């Protein structure tokens, strides 16, 4: 009921002769192609089709980098999709600045997004020059370890609570015939692991100093050196097949009892659920790993490239509104393994792992902005290249990588 009222309002605004909203087909580009993700996005599509007016036209493109590239090229080429997934980050900043995105401010005000969205910082990347250009759909945090409980039981070890634990336990796990730490050897996964080490070893304060304040001394400090050192030690913990492996193939190593642990964002949970595993029974989830875990509040958002057709625009607003509605938030995030962006929904049905995450998100002390929301895509990418190079080049010294790290942060936007 609510959605159609907005649609009416919108179409009346855009096209004074229209009295009722008409059906529109919206093409949505996203990169949700793994098992758990497919289940979640199908839910959104079904929900949107169910409003009786519109239809969801799915364009899945494997790989976030590839998908975002296609969106950019198609917007540049004047063939923009009606909606597109991005990370909650600065990736779409220039699109908004160039006035290519639909302004959602009115809808946001009407539905009081500023009040319902939690934590509040999640809406910040969407706001550019005082206008809201995107709708956040979920919160994903990178700082999680996923463990195979059976392996730890067999080896007789506690789940790791810090990166030092992971390193210390490696020998025993290796001797028992398991991979101590499964890493997918793709640039972004290596970078994610680095972020986890940074947060776990360096902590939130260092994170903010280095990335937000761009404090050169902090970037060159011994604390950051320690981060790189710890990260470097993890190289020997993975297996030979790591190179180029997808994240979900890596997760299956943990699921199938080949690897003890993987550091991956909370979306990995979806793979466990799909495999019929039970949280905290078959698999464990350790935030951080740190005694004081801090989660970055990344996640996915949708942008709506501007269209000429007022009917399409009305449908875009309907989709935006639907994505944030309490009901969809619960269903979608339960399927996907992410946290809802609203604090006012009932997530009682969530499993123990999700509950852990939700509890942490409630206190601003435990959260930080992800790197790609702080740095431009260009600078973020340079850091990723550097980290990936360091990970794959054991001969590279910590001093060398740290110098380059500090230089990129000083130079980039």
């Amino acid at each position, binding site marked *: 009921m609510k959605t159609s009222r907005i649609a009416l309002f919108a179409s009346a605004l855009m096209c004074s002769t229209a009295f009722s909203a008409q059906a529109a087909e919206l093409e949505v580009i996203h990169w949700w192609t793994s098992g758990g993700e497919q289940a979640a996005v199908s839910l959104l599509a079904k929900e949107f089709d169910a409003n009786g007016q519109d239809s969801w036209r799915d364009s899945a493109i494997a790989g976030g*980098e590839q998908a*975002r*590239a296609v969106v*950019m*090229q198609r917007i*540049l080429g004047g063939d923009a999709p009606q909606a597109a997934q991005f990370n909650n980050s600065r*990736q779409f900043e*220039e*699109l908004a600045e*160039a006035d290519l995105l639909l302004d959602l401010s009115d809808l946001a005000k009407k539905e009081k997004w500023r009040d319902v969205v939690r934590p509040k910082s999640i809406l910040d990347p969407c706001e550019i020059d005082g206008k809201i250009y995107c709708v956040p759909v979920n919160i994903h945090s990178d700082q999680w370890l996923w463990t195979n409980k059976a392996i730890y039981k067999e080896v007789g070890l506690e789940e790791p609570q810090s990166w030092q634990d992971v390193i210390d336990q490696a020998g025993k796990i290796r001797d028992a015939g398991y991979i101590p730490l499964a890493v997918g*050897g*793709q*640039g972004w996964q*290596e970078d994610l692991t680095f972020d986890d080490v940074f947060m776990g070893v360096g902590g939130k304060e260092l994170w903010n100093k280095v990335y937000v304040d761009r404090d050169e001394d902090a970037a060159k400090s011994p604390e950051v050196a320690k981060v790189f050192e710890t990260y470097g030690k993890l190289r020997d913990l993975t297996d*030979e*097949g*790591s*190179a*180029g492996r997808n994240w979900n193939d890596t997760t299956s190593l943990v699921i199938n009892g080949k690897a003890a642990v993987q550091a991956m964002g909370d979306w990995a949970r979806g793979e466990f659920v799909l495999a019929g595993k039970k949280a905290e029974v078959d698999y464990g989830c350790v935030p951080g790993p740190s005694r004081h875990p801090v989660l970055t509040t990344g996640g996915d958002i949708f942008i709506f490239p501007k269209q000429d057709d007022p009917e399409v625009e009305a449908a875009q607003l309907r989709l935006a509104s639907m994505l944030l509605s309490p009901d969809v938030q619960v269903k979608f995030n339960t399927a996907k393994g992410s946290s809802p962006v609203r604090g006012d929904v009932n997530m009682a049905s969530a499993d123990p792992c999700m509950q852990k995450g939700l509890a942490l998100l409630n206190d601003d002390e435990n959260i930080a902005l992800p790197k790609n929301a702080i740095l*431009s*895509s*260009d600078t973020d*990418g*340079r850091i990723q*290249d*550097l980290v*990936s*190079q*360091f*990970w*794959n*080049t054991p001969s590279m010294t910590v001093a060398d990588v740290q110098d*380059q790290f500090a230089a990129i942060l000083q*130079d980039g936007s």
Partner: protein
Amino acid sequence: MKRKTRMWSNLSAKIASVPMLVTAIGVFVLCVVYSIALSFTRSRYFPKFDFIGFDQYVRLWTTDRWTVSVSNLLIFGLLFVGFCLLLGFLLAVMLDRNIRMEGVFRTTFLYPYALSFVVTGLIWQWMMDPALGIQNVVRNMGWESFSFAPLTSTTYAIYGVVIAAVWQGTGLIMCLMLAGLRGVDREIWKAARVDGIPLWRTYIFIIIPMIRPVIVTSVVLLSISVVRVYDLVVAQTGGGPGIATEVPAKFVIDHFTERGNVAIAMAAATMMLLPVLLLVGPWVYNEYVRRVRA
């Protein structure tokens, strides 16, 4: 009357050449100039002509990923062209020795050329997989220390890409070389045999110089695919491990899309263009522009 037809005919020729004119000037000149111009700006996702000089080039050449890409292209290019020529020639020579089932062998060597780089990359990624590929098979047969998983090593990954590319490209070269060999006058062979010149000497000192045009064509075709190599790397290694198999084309694409830095992407594209202009330019001028038809 005659003059008029001539003019009209010439006009038809000119009209017929419009698409060529548009492509040559519009795309290969104007678009290239536009790209080069962008490399001197600070453009991110969208073109913005705020000229800043050579900053992007300075950054480019101080970026490890770019220098690694360039050296990979050199390694890849030399090995790929070298092995394709060598293998292509040897296979062609063998096929030219009056063998049975020549057609079967020829088709066998040529078919990979029909496959896309994406397909080639995927197959070889699978063959080189340490847990499921050749390495595992050989180890299961009892040779425990056998190791063939180049894609997992930063040092050897690029050679893994070379193997895949040679597998794909050799057939065409074999085909070209075979055509060249078949074009050699039979009298030459007779003369060489009469003079008692050994077979290998005949090939190296007499036949190879005679099929020089074929070799030139082969080198040209191979070089074109070297500069453009992209799909293969994306499908086989994704540029990894780390940045070990990055190539310039991928640097360009990644930067004007995902990275949102069109300017540095175009600086990189310009650097890719430079050797083409310097090396191929004079050759093309000599071969096709200056030379009047023989």
